[in-house]
Each structure stands twice: as C-alpha cells, then as structure tokens.
C-alpha cells in the first residue's frame, strides 16, 4: 500500500513529468528527422524520374550529342564513360587488391601497413577535384593536350583506395584457422592467399569493385580537365573524350531547352546505374552473410 502510494506520488511529481515530456519531445524530433532525411531521397528521385523519363527514347542511345537547338542523343558520352570506367577499373583494381592483400596478409601489424592504411583513408575521402588537378599536372600538362587516358587515370586514382579498403576488410574476415590449415599441409603463403583466402573473400572483393565502379560512374570533377569533353563520337584515347557526367554539367548550365532535357535524361541514367550497382553490391555481401 505504502509503496504504491509513494510510487504514484513520484509519478505525479513535476520532475518525473518533465523527464517524460522531454523524452516524448526527443522521440518526436527523432521521428521527424528521419522523415526529413528520407523525404529528400524520395523528392530527389521523384523529380529525377519525372524530368528524366520524358526524354528517354531509343535515340538517346543511338545518336550523338547534338549541336545547340537540334535533337540528338547521348551515345558518344555513354561510350566514353564506359571506356574510361572500364580502363580505370582495369588499372586500379590489380593495384588495389594487391595493396589490400599486403595490409591484410603480409604486413598485418607492421609499421608500413599502419601508414598505408592511414594514407589510404585520406585518399578515400580526398576531394575528387584535387585528383583531377593532380592528373592534369602529371599527364595533361606534359602531353600538352587533354586525353581519354588522363580521364581513365584520374578515375583509377579514385578506384584504388576503395578497392584497397574493401579487400583488406574482406580478407580480415577470413578465419585464421583456414590459413593455418593451409600452412599445415605445406602450402606456401602466396598459394594460400590466392587459393584459399581470395576464394573465401571473393564475394566481398567483387563487392568492393562494384562499389568503386558506382563511385566513379558519377564522378565529374576529376574528368573536367583531364578528359575534357568532345561533341563527337571518339574512340581515340589520346584525344579529348566525352563522358556522361561532364556532358550533363555542360548541358544543364546551357540555355537551350533540348540540352537541358538531355541533361536530365543523362542524370537519370547515371542515378539508375549507380543505385543499381550499389544494390547489387549490397545483395552480394548480404547473401554471403546469411
């Protein structure tokens, strides 16, 4: 009896009411913040779909970027983006995987690894426009002209840290008992890594590569002054090469309605690609976990 009485007294006290009120307010704010955050995602994707889908037609994939005032497509930009992305992955992935392997296998605790790990994290979030300036200084300025090669190298510099990071993380998840079992039957370390560790971490490493592709397929800043742009269809890596993001940048800021419409369509294509790749990457790892 006495206990219940004191308990209700405590519940009615202004202190307790105040605490409960604060709790309710905080919960409400948290809920509102989540709606706010998700609201932007819905809004941006909604606008993108609305504006981009109208311009989507076969000619987008069949025709090159038009001169002002004419109709056209995005073929040269799509092809340019594909070529530079593939090249960047081909250049960046081997270096990334090997460096990640060193961090996770050979030099797990040595001094070099902790320095490389730190530097890699810095590179991972370094402003991409600075990467563009770097490649301009080492490739474009000495060669004297913009080129598709420079664009691919700039993208590769962005690929490397992403792949290093995921490779190291995924190899670290491979149980040491597997490594010990391999060592106990006399398998040398290199063979153990290639045959056992890589195989166990396969899905994770592929995820890392997919995430890297997702990251570079929307990158604009590093391409602006490396690959520049090209109004025409070009497979010449030594010459300026068009890419989807740069074309979007140029067309969106132009005063021509046709160009702006193409920019929205291109933006939709990039977003669908990037979201598709991230979802694919995510499903790869989650399938492994479960």
């Amino acid at each position: 009896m006495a206990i219940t009485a004191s308990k209700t007294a405590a519940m009615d006290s202004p202190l307790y009411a105040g605490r409960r009120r604060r709790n309710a307010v905080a919960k409400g704010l948290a809920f509102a913040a989540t709606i706010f955050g998700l609201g932007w995602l819905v809004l941006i994707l909604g606008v993108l779909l609305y504006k981009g889908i109208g311009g989507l037609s076969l000619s987008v994939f069949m025709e090159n970027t038009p001169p002002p005032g004419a109709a056209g497509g995005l073929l040269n930009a799509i092809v340019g983006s594909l070529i530079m992305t593939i090249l960047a992955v081909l250049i960046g992935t081997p270096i990334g995987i090997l460096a990640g392997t060193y961090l996770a296998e050979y030099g797990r605790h040595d001094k070099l690894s902790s320095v490389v790990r730190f530097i890699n994290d810095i590179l991972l979030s370094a402003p991409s426009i600075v990467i563009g300036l770097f490649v301009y200084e080492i490739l474009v300025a000495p060669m004297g002209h913009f080129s598709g090669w420079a664009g691919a190298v700039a993208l590769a510099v962005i690929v490397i840290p992403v792949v290093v990071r995921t490779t190291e993380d995924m190899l670290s998840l491979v149980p040491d008992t597997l490594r010990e079992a391999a060592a106990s039957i006399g398998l040398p370390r290199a063979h153990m890594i290639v045959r056992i560790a890589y195989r166990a971490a396969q899905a994770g490493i592929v995820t890392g590569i997919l995430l890297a592709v997702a990251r570079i397929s929307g990158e604009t800043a590093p391409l602006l002054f490396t690959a520049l742009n090209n109004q025409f269809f070009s497979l010449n890596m030594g010459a300026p090469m068009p890419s989807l993001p740069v074309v979007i940048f140029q067309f969106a800021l132009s005063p021509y309605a046709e160009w702006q419409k193409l920019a929205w369509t291109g933006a939709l294509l990039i977003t669908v690609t990037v979201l598709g790749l991230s979802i694919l990457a995510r499903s790869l790892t989650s399938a492994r976990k479960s």
Partner: protein
Amino acid sequence: MASGERDVSEVALKGASAPAAASASRAAVLRRLRLTDSIFHGLTRGASLAVLALLSGVIIALIYGAAPALGTFGFGFLFDESWNPVTERFGALAPIFGTLVTSFIAMLIAVPVGLMVAFFLTELCPMMLRRPIGIAIELLAGIPSIIYGIWGLFVFAPFMQQYVQPLFIDTFANVPVLSTLFAGPPYGIGMFTAGLILAIMVLPFVTSISRDVFDAVPPVLKEAAYGVGCTTWEVFRYVVLPFTRVGVIGGFMLGLGRALGETMAVTFVIGNAHHISASLFAPGTTISASIANEFTEAVGDLYTSALVALGLILFFITFCVLAIARYMLMRLQQQGGK
C-alpha cells in the same frame, strides 16, 4: 589451377617412397614455390608502396603547379580578396571564405538531424524497418554529386527564390544581425542554397557513421541505465552519447571533409562570384567551384597556377580534417578493443 596443390602432394608422396630420387626434384619444387612466394610478397608490398607514392605524388604535383602563383603573391595570397584575370592579380580569400561558410551551414543542419536519425534508427525504430531505412539513407550517400547539382539548379534554387528567401528577408528585416545575414535580392542561387544542398549530401554520412558507432555500445550499459529508470532519451543522452563521443566527432569530421571538398553540387548553385558578402543570399564561390568553373578557361600560366594553389589549400584543409577524423575513429576502436 590445382597444379600447386598437386606439386605439394606429389612431393610428399615421392618423398615417402623414394627418398634419394625425389630429393632433387623436391628441392627444385621448393625453390620454385619460394620464388613465387617472394615475387607475390614483393608485388603486394610494391602495390602498398604505390598507394604511398600516390599521395606524395598528389602533394608534390600540387606544390609544383602552385609554385608560380605562390612565388608571385607569397603569403598574401591567403588574405587577398581580389581575383582579376585581366590584371593577373589573384587572392584566395573569397573562395576560402565561401568554402568555410557553406560547409559551416551544412554541418549546422546535418549534425543535429543526422544524430537524431541515428538515435531513431538505433533506439526507437521497429526492428523490421531498421534495415530498409538504413539502406535508404546509405543509398542517399551514393547518389553522385552532379545529381544534387542539377536538382539544386532546376528545382531547389527556384523554390528558394520564390518562397524561402523572400520569407526570410521579410521576417528578419528589422532584426539587427539577421537582417544583414539575410539581405539582398533573392537570387535563389548563392551561399545559403549551396550550404543547404551540402547539408542534404552530408546527412547520410553523419547518419550512417553515428549509427554504426551507436550500435557498438555494449547493451549491458544501456540495460543498466534502463534498470535504474532512465527514459529512452536519457539513456541516449547520458550513456550512449558520452560513450561514443570520440567516434561521433570522427564521423562529423568525415562529413565535414566531404562538405569542404564537394564540387559539382556547389558549382551549380553558388553563383561563382569572387567577392565576400555579409549576406548569405549573395552569390559567392568556393575553392572547388572556382577550380571547376575556371580551370579549362584559364589563360596564362599565372591564372592556372593560382587555381592549382587553391587546390593545394583545399587539399591541406581537408587533409587536416580527415587526419583528425581518422585519429578519433581509431581511438574509439582501441577503446572498444580494451
């Protein structure tokens, strides 16, 4: 593919049956294995040294490119507001100012909102919804910045111009400080709009790192707090937040690093005007936007070099911010490991 494994087992079998004949081939196989092993070791080591070389290369290339401008203007480059390609007089003050102000606006909004979303996701959200909402917010982080840019230019800036900015200007017209901050004609584009778009971009970063960090709090701590009668908010405020403080600050710094270096989203809506204005509604510029807008059109070595010098300053600022972020996140990991 399985040749190495066969080699090893053959060696073992032969070694057991015919020791004398096998010993020569066994030595050869072992030598080959040792060679491939050391080659592979060298390759991986070389690749990780390449990562180091990459960062040093970035720094050296930027310093080399920036040298003419820095040599001409000296330290005054940092404090000069003028930016005149015709007279070739360049100063970095306006872009630095713009970068800091837009990032500050972004963090001012993204940090509290991000923390509250993470609070919702870790403490309040029904289990069923946690994963989908978390994934949705991470997807927001994956959208390329040019998409935010084009959306900001065509949708968000007109909206700001028509509704938000006139409202702010009218409301604060007679408030002392705020009337200068929110003054001038509503252009739609400008520092304020750029800051808001950056906030939307940074939000998912702050959220997902905070959530990961909050999830790492040992349940026992939270249970003990609930046990003595704390409310959900009190558990979060007095147990979860203090425990994860270092990690949360590290997450903020990562978000800040992204906001400082963000290029495309800002370039579309900042207005690219090299002057410092007290009003947030005025067009301005940031370091990255100046480079993106002017680099290909820059004529003359000094102009190009001044832009590279801007890049060097940006890299230096973000390097410091990111280094602090990593240091803090590392400290949290060590604390968790104990």
